């Protein structure tokens, strides 16, 4: 049991001077009659809003940033919202369109903030709700959007709803969670954290009943069969949307409902609830997005986009989980088939939707969506040291996973920026930051951002001993060698390279909006695909000019130089222009188009009608 217990209503001295309400930064509280009272948006200023563009997320480059890890403005050793706000110019320079912040709500922090004890309060070490509004406002000023996680499936056991629920089974919160006298119901539901939990049921000594939890036992599942729970969650959503937030990553969506004789995942009731959430967003907050986190096969995940006939009526976006381990596998095996296979199994998605794709994030590189044999393979290749493994995955950053090999870093990033979906970069990967596998759990990949070669990597003014995690200090990945400042000063750095690639991606709508066509070819080590977009320059804006944008991406997954003959008959008479230097290549003729690539090399070409090239 965590020490964060219920707070009583604040004492008289701490209440606001004129309205008699408690200090808004204290968030929710329990009233004398056992009601949990939450702040309302009117308590706060809202951020300025960006032009309503219903499709922005389809073209956006996302950047996942951990508030704790980015920049410390208060010299307490822990990054905070004001610190992040101070770095927005950097992110805007890099070309980031949207920040994804993992949860920054009040939490006992037993699961990286995914154990929320108050949806209406910012974790005190990160700042206040007002700091968050300031971040939103400053981000919007730079054209950057911000989304955050919303954990709908469960709360922390420290949440007042749970405390009331266990204390008073017959009270207003008695049915907020899933309680049972026995621990036998729903036997087909798998246990997700197999290495820490033995059952999805845990006995509560206070209520003397078992409660249901799909994740850790300190994270009881909310009972969505209770309409009040649904309403409460919609209120949470509205609260943040009113402040100006641009959307939510909906954590662990497949598990909202439970039904007998099912595995309690992806139930129709869950989809119905998501449709009602989407309707609120659509009606009241157009242009804000819902991003589903459903670690499932693409064929199952598409269900979370909803009805294709109306362009999707559940989530706007969903993560494509199985792609990422397969990119790693393909390069190690020097074979395109791991990627070609998963792309071939990826169904079409509704017109108003987009995949979210990533190479690394704050979680381990998850291997749930690969076969046992492939998992062994990935462990063998990328996590030889058992300390590099966590749950079902690998806890490493991109650069160390790739032996800090610049060619591979570029190849992987080029694929991330050109495969279908909106790319999500992970903070620090743009400079090739390292990890610290000696840190427990998933902290290996959550160390302070490396800004300068100065003390604490320029992350914090605090005494180094007070940092929430030590900075990386080894000779290869340490902040003396790898930091933003030195990479800004060198135009050949990974940072500048990444920025240029993002820039190129943005010049060509085909990368974001185009169809994907795997070109195959007799050389199994080369993955080539065409992205083709035909439509308005601004999707959905009939007044913008009609364009036809075709991009050819060729990736050599092998360490050796490789030739490839591409069947481009369809483009006979057109000419490829290499996109980084705008060098025209020989026009496409009737015969297969021959290219040679250096080891781990790649090309991005625009394919243009010949007359456009010569003029």
């Amino acid at each position: 049991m965590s020490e964060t217990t219920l707070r009583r209503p604040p004492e008289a001295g701490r209440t606001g001077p004129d309205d008699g309400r408690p200090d808004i930064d204290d968030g929710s509280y329990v009233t004398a009659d056992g009601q949990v009272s939450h702040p309302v948006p009117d308590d706060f200023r809202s951020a300025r809003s960006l032009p309503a563009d219903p499709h922005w997320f389809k073209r956006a480059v996302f950047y996942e940033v951990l508030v704790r890890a980015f920049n410390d403005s208060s010299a307490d050793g822990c990054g905070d919202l004001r610190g992040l706000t101070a770095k927005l110019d950097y992110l805007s320079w890099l070309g980031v369109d949207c920040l994804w912040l993992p949860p920054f709500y009040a939490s006992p922090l037993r699961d990286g903030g995914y154990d929320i004890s108050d949806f209406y309060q910012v974790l005190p070490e990160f700042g206040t709700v007002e700091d968050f509004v300031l971040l939103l406002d400053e981000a919007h000023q730079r054209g950057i959007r911000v989304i955050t996680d919303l954990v709908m499936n469960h709360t922390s056991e420290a949440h007042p709803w749970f405390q009331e629920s266990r204390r008073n089974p017959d009270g207003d919160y008695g049915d907020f969670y899933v309680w049972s006298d026995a621990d036998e119901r729903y036997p087909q539901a798998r246990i997700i954290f197999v290495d820490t939990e033995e059952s999805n049921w845990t006995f509560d000594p206070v209520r003397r009943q078992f409660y249901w939890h799909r994740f850790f036992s300190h994270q009881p599942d909310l009972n969505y069969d209770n309409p009040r729970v649904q309403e409460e969650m919609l209120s949470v959503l509205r609260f943040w949307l009113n402040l100006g937030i641009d959307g939510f990553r909906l954590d662990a969506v497949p598990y909202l409902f439970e039904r007998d004789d099912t595995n309690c995942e992806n139930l129709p009731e869950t989809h119905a609830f998501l449709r009602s959430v989407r309707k609120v967003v659509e009606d009241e907050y157009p242009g804000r997005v819902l991003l589903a986190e459903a670690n499932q096969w693409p064929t199952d995940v598409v269900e979370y986009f909803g009805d294709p006939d109306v362009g999707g009526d559940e989530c706007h976006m969903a993560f494509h989980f199985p792609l990422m381990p397969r990119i790693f596998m393909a390069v190690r095996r020097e074979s395109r088939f791991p990627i070609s296979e998963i792309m071939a199994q990826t169904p079409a998605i509704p017109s108003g939707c987009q995949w979210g794709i990533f190479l690394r994030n704050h979680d381990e590189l998850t291997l749930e969506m690969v076969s046992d044999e492939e998992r062994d393979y990935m462990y063998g290749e990328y996590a030889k040291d058992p300390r590099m493994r966590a749950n079902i995955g690998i806890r490493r950053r991109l650069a160390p996973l790739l032996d800090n090999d610049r060619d591979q870093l570029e190849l992987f990033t080029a694929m991330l920026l050109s495969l279908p979906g909106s790319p999500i970069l992970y903070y620090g990967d743009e400079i090739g930051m390292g990890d610290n596998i000696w840190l427990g759990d998933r902290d290996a990949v959550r160390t302070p951002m490396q800004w300068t070669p100065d003390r604490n990597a320029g992350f914090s003014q605090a005494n180094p001993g007070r940092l929430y995690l030590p900075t990386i200090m080894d000779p290869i990945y340490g902040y003396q060698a790898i930091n933003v400042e030195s990479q800004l000063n060198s135009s050949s750095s990974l940072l500048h390279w990444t920025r240029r690639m993002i820039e190129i991606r943005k010049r060509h709508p085909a990368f974001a909006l185009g169809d994907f066509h795997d070109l195959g070819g007799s050389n199994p080590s080369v993955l080539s695909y065409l992205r083709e977009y035909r439509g308005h320059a601004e999707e959905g804006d009939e007044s913008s000019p009609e364009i036809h944008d075709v991009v050819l991406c060729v990736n050599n997954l092998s360490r050796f130089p490789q030739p490839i003959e591409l069947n481009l008959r369809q483009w006979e008479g057109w000419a490829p222009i290499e996109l980084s230097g705008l060098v025209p290549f020989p026009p496409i003729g009737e015969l297969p188009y021959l290219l040679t690539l250096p080891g781990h090399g790649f090309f991005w070409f625009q394919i243009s009608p010949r007359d456009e090239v010569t003029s």
Partner: protein
Amino acid sequence: MSPTATDRAVALAGAFARWLPEQRWFAGKHRSIEAVTPVSAVPLGDVQPRLDHLVVEVRYATGEPERYQLLVGWRTALPEKLEHARIGTVGSHVGFAGLWDDELADLLLGALAGGEQHGGLVFRPEPGATITRGLPSRVVEVEQSNSSVVFDEESILKLFRRPTPGANPDVELNRALRRVGCPHVAPLLGEIGGELSGAAVSYGMLSAYAANSADGWAMATASVRDLFAEGDLKADEVGGDFAAEAHRLGAAVAAVHTDLVTALGSGQRDADGHAELSAAMIGRLADAVRTVPELARYAARLGAEFTAVADLTAPYPIQRIHGDLHLGQALRTPTGWLLIDFEGEPVKPLAERVRSDSPLRDVAGMLRSFDYAAEHLLVGEGADHQLEYRAQEWAARNRSAFTAGYTEAAGQDPGRHRTLLRAYELDKAVYEVVYEARHRPAWRWIPLRSIARMLGFEVPPPGDLPSA
């Protein structure tokens, strides 16, 4: 323009004699041609550009004549891009290799889609097949004994260059496998058949094209290259490990064997059959030793292995098999492995190729191919014990992964018939030694080394010792 297709063919005879030796698929490159005469000539349509279907007989100064299937296009002016396909001129018309012409290739598709009949030619779509027309086409440019045209990403038409009377096993087995829904072959879409000198003959087959595929040889050799580039990692430690693919390939081959039994039945080989098989192997060995003296030192032991086959008394199951299985006959696609080219070993007469045989022959063929993939990079490199050792590790690992995959899918371990499997493998290696000695002498060391290894001899280095 000459009135009949036969007249046109006769008029081109001289040009054929110059043109044929330049074609990849022409087997008589080193023989001197005496005459090229049409045996059959069928015009396919009478609008411009025209296409004539021909079977010509090539007579040589010495030896048996050969028959070839040709498709000759006719245009009054040859566009620049077809210039390379020119054969010769007759009057105001240019005759050229018609497959290169999109329009003429599409004409063949149209005939297939419509189930047309022209002269002795019958174009037959398979029941329920969809044939898409009007696509850009290209002639496949690989070393091939036939000619294939790919229609965009939809279908591939293979024209058998040397029409042989009798049912073509490639068509026959693909048709049977499609009928039982085998997922490991490219679905057959149609056949061009006909009659030649009174016997049924197959001229070509149209199959679904596996657009995003690469063959097993390319995949396996990428893996070997990766292994050789690593300092001292073992085959199971390097990223490019092929064992998982080999395992799936083994399962695919077993599934095809099972489906062939379902579709066409099975039989048994009795003691007489084994004696016959043994005698054939011994006969081939005797011929081989005469051609490649380096085989002599192994001949006695090889003979003993082949003789052991004659001693097998228990009946062994036989069935229709692929007959010429190696890594190059397997295509990896995003959904799994396909087997192609069920024609059997090309040098054998048709009657032999369509006979039932043990599926172990196919297994042995694939096992041999793993040895080839592992060792081909060593050829001509002089002795390097480290690399040779690691090549063998790769071969052993992938051979056993293939066998395990086969065993899992078939429910039986092919290795349990040790005598027979070894004999098939050694027989194949002997065949390879002869083939390599004739065509790629430096490569003969690959099968020679395998034979030495299998028989427990000291393994010779993978190349000729430098002459003193």
